[in-house]
C-alpha cells in the first residue's frame, strides 16, 4: 500500500515535470522534446506499476477502487509539493517571479499557439 502510493506519487511527479510550466518552475529550464517524452513514459510506467501492486495486494475489484483513491492522493500530493516549491522559489527570487512567469507563459503560447486553433477546427 505504502509502496503503491509512493509509486503513484512519483509517477504523477514525473508527469508533472514533463510539463513545460512545472519543469521551468522546478528546474528553471525548458525541457527538450525527448526529455518530456521520457518523463511521460516513466510516469506512465510508475503509475502502471502502482496499479499492479494494488491489484496484486487487493485483487482486481477492490484493487481498482483502491488504486483510483491512491492515485488521487498521489496527484494531490504532487500539487502540494509543486505549490510549496513554487512559493519557496518565488520567495527566493523575490520580484523576479513575476518576470519569469510572464516569460514562461510567453514561451508557452509561442510554441503552442496553434493548439487552440486546431482544437476549434475539430
Amino acid at each position, binding site marked *: *500500500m505504502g509502496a503503491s502510493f509512493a509509486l503513484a506519487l512519483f509517477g*504523477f511527479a514525473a*508527469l*508533472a515535470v514533463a*510539463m*513545460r*510550466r*512545472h519543469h521551468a518552475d522546478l528546474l528553471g529550464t525548458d525541457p527538450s522534446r525527448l526529455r518530456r517524452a521520457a518523463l511521460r513514459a516513466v510516469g506512465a510506467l510508475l503509475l502502471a506499476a502502482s496499479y499492479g501492486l494494488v491489484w496484486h495486494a*487487493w*485483487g482486481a*475489484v*477492490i484493487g481498482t*477502487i*483502491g488504486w*483510483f*483513491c*491512491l492515485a*488521487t*492522493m498521489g*496527484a*494531490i500530493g*504532487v*500539487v502540494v509539493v*509543486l*505549490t510549496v516549491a513554487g*512559493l519557496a522559489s518565488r520567495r527566493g527570487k523575490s520580484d523576479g517571479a513575476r518576470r519569469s512567469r510572464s516569460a514562461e*507563459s510567453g514561451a*508557452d*503560447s*509561442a*510554441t*503552442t*499557439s496553434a*493548439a*487552440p486553433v486546431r*482544437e*476549434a477546427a475539430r
Partner: protein
Amino acid sequence: MKRSFRLSMQWLHTWTGAVSGLILFLVFFNGTAAYFKQEITTWMEPQITAAIDPVKSVVAAQAFLTANTSDAEAWTISVPDARRPVADVSWRFRSDAQARDDDDGRLRPGRSVMIDSRGYPLAVNDTEGGNYFFQFHFAFHYLPLFVGSIIVGLASLALMVALTTGVIIHRRIFADFFTFRPANGPRSWLDAHTTFAVLALPFHMMITYTGVAILAFFFMPWAVFANYSSAQAFFSDLAPRPHAAALSGIVAPLVPITSVLQSAEAQWRGGRAATIHVTNPGDASATIEIVRRQSALLVGGRGDTLTFNGATGALVRGPSNPSAAAIASSVVFSLHEAHFANPALRWLLFLCGTTGTAMTATGSILWAERRRRKLPNPVGGPKGFRLLETLNVAIIAGYPAATAAYFWSNRLLPASIQGRSNGEILCSFACWGVFLVWSALRPKRKAWVEVLGVGSFLFLALPVANAVTTSRGTIASLIGGDALYIGFDAVCLALGLLLGASAVWTGRRLSSHAGPPVDAPDSSVSLSVPKGSE
C-alpha cells in the same frame, strides 16, 4: 457555436452548483464521516474497551437471550469485529410484529443491548453515535426520510450535471492538472475547486452515481407501484428479513449457535459472519440464518447467506443465486457504502470524501467571491448576497464546529439524563443555530474568522476533554496502541489545525485588506481562458 455551447455549459455549471453547493457540502461532510460510522459510535460509547473474542461473545449472547427473551419471535446478533468490538443483540416479540421497526432496522430502546464477553449487558451511553452522520447525509436528521431523500437526491442529480459540465468547461483540464496558484483572489479559489474536483473525479463520479441510483426509487417509484401493492411489500423484498414460520408447538432447544457459525465459516473458506438471525428460538421450527461479512468481495451480502435448522443444526438453504438485477443493486450499494473496505481502503475513501467536501466548499466560496466583484460596493451588498455569505459562513465554517459540539456533548452530558442521544444532537443543532445567528449579525469576514476559530478550538480541545472525562486520553491510547482513539484524536487534530489555519489566513487577509486584491485582466471568472495548452 462552440463558444456559446461552452458558455451555456458554464451557466449550467454555475447554477446547478450554486443551488446545490451547500446542501452537497453537508452531504459530503456527513457522508465522509459516515465511512467511520461504526468507529464513531464505538468512540461515543467509551465504556466499550478491549476487543472481544467473536466466538465467546456469540456464546455469551445466546446465553443472555435464552435467559431473558426465550419467548421472542426473532433474535439478531451482530458478530463483533475490529470495527465494532462488541456484540449488538436485539430481539423482537411476537406482539411487535404489527408495530413496524424503524426504517433502518433498529429496534426501539429496551429491545437491544450490547453483550460483553461474560454474557452481561454492557452499560453504555445512550447515543446515536456515527449513525447520526449516516442519517444526516441523506435526510438531514430532523426532516422526514422522504423529504430529506428527495432534497439530497435532487442535489445529487445537480452534482451529476455540475461534474459533467465542469469537465466540459474546463478547457485546460490537463494543462492545469497540477496547478495551484495561491494568493491570487478568485483564481486561487478556482484552482482549488478544480484541483479537488478533477483529481478525485473518479471518486466523485462513483459516489454521486451510486448515490443517485440508491435514491432512484424516490424519483421513479412507478416500477414499484406497478409490481407491489404496498411500499412495505417492496422493502421487505428488497431487504428480506428472516420470516418466522408458524410455531410448531414442539419444544426443541436451540443448538449452540457457535457450532452452526463454524460450519458456515468453513463453507465460506475463511469468510467471516457478520450477522446472525434466529427465528422461533426454542421451537422445533427454529432457523438460524448466518449472513456473511463483506471483505474482499464487492458482491455478496444477499447471495451469501446460509440458513440452518435451529433444532438440528442441519443446513436448510445454501447460498441463493441472486438475479442479475439483484447483483447490480448489490454492487451499487456496496460501492457507495464500502462495507468491503479494509482499514487502509477505508482511510483512502475517507480522504477522497474530504476532497468532495473541499470541492463543494471551494465552489460555494468561489461563487460568492465572483459575485462580490460584480457588486458596486464590495462591503455589504444586496440582501440576497448577504444571505448567501451568511449561509456560507454558517454552513462551511459553522457545521464542522457544530459537529465538534456533538462530540463535546457526548463527553459532557451526564449519563443518567433521559433521551441523552437526542440531547447530544440537540446540543449540536443549538450550536449550529448560534453560529447561524452570529454569522448573520457580524460583518462577514469577521464572522468567518470567528466561527472558524471556534471550530478550531473545539476540535483541538476535544482530545483534552476526552482525556479528562475518560481514562482513554491520547497518551494512554498511544501507549496501549488503541487505534480507534489514536485515529480519532489525529482527525480532531488535523481538523482543528485546518480550521485554525483557515481562520488565521482569513484574518490576515482581513488585516491587510485594502480593497479587493488586484486581479489579472482576463477577469479570471471564465474557466475557458483561451491560452496555450500543454
